[in-house]
């Protein structure tokens, strides 16, 4: 079965540069989520989109922005990168159906800021 696709898988940037992470949800899924996982940490929610509208917002820095496009893929834009932004960034997707809302995660993008 098709899974969540994230690109790139690895990214190395310098401080103060910008980065764009892409996420392609499972076909027919209408909701996309972004999470950040630091070393030895649990995933922390950043932001989500349902039917192309921002749905929920977590601890996303103002330097970051995201959107969901008409084909349901999503991009996370990160500017003025800091060393502390080095982490695994996961995208998840789901199809909300009544009481069921299982989020399926992609393989992640490992961002290293030097």
């Amino acid at each position, binding site marked *: 079965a098709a899974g*969540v696709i994230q690109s790139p898988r690895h990214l190395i940037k310098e401080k103060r540069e910008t980065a764009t992470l892409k996420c392609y949800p499972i076909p027919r899924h*209408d*909701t996309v*989520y972004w*999470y950040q996982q630091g070393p030895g*940490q*649990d*995933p*922390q*929610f950043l932001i*989500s*989109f*349902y039917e192309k509208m921002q*749905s*929920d917002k*977590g601890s996303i820095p103002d330097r970051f922005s995201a959107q969901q496009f008409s084909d349901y893929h999503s991009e996370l834009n990160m500017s003025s990168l800091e060393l502390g932004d080095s982490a*695994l960034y*996961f995208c*998840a997707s789901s199809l*909300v159906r009544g*009481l*069921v*809302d*299982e*989020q*399926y*995660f*992609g*393989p*992640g993008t*490992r961002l290293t800021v030097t």
Partner: protein
Amino acid sequence: DQQVKQNSPSLSVQEGRISILNCDYTNSMFDYFLWYKKYPAEGPTFLISISSIKDKNEDGRFTVFLNKSAKHLSLHIVPSQPGDSAVYFCAASQNQAGTALIFGKGTTLSVSS
């Protein structure tokens, strides 16, 4: 303050035995709970979920139990297999479209043969 707590960082079990992973939560607004399995440098893999209207959900070797009054859930794996060795995350949400999952810190399960 950690809203989802997995108080055991690690658990070791012999192959064929039962693995029981525990999770506690503090937010009474949570109404949907999930368990994920994660290998290093990979995304979390969905295992099983349960809505707050149920107290048990079973899928093959995996069973999740929910005790709402105690704000406690557990994942039972029977029988445990070496391939089950991974980090297991408990997650909770208020089940509305696009709502964040709040994760626990994870429990590392080691199944020895």
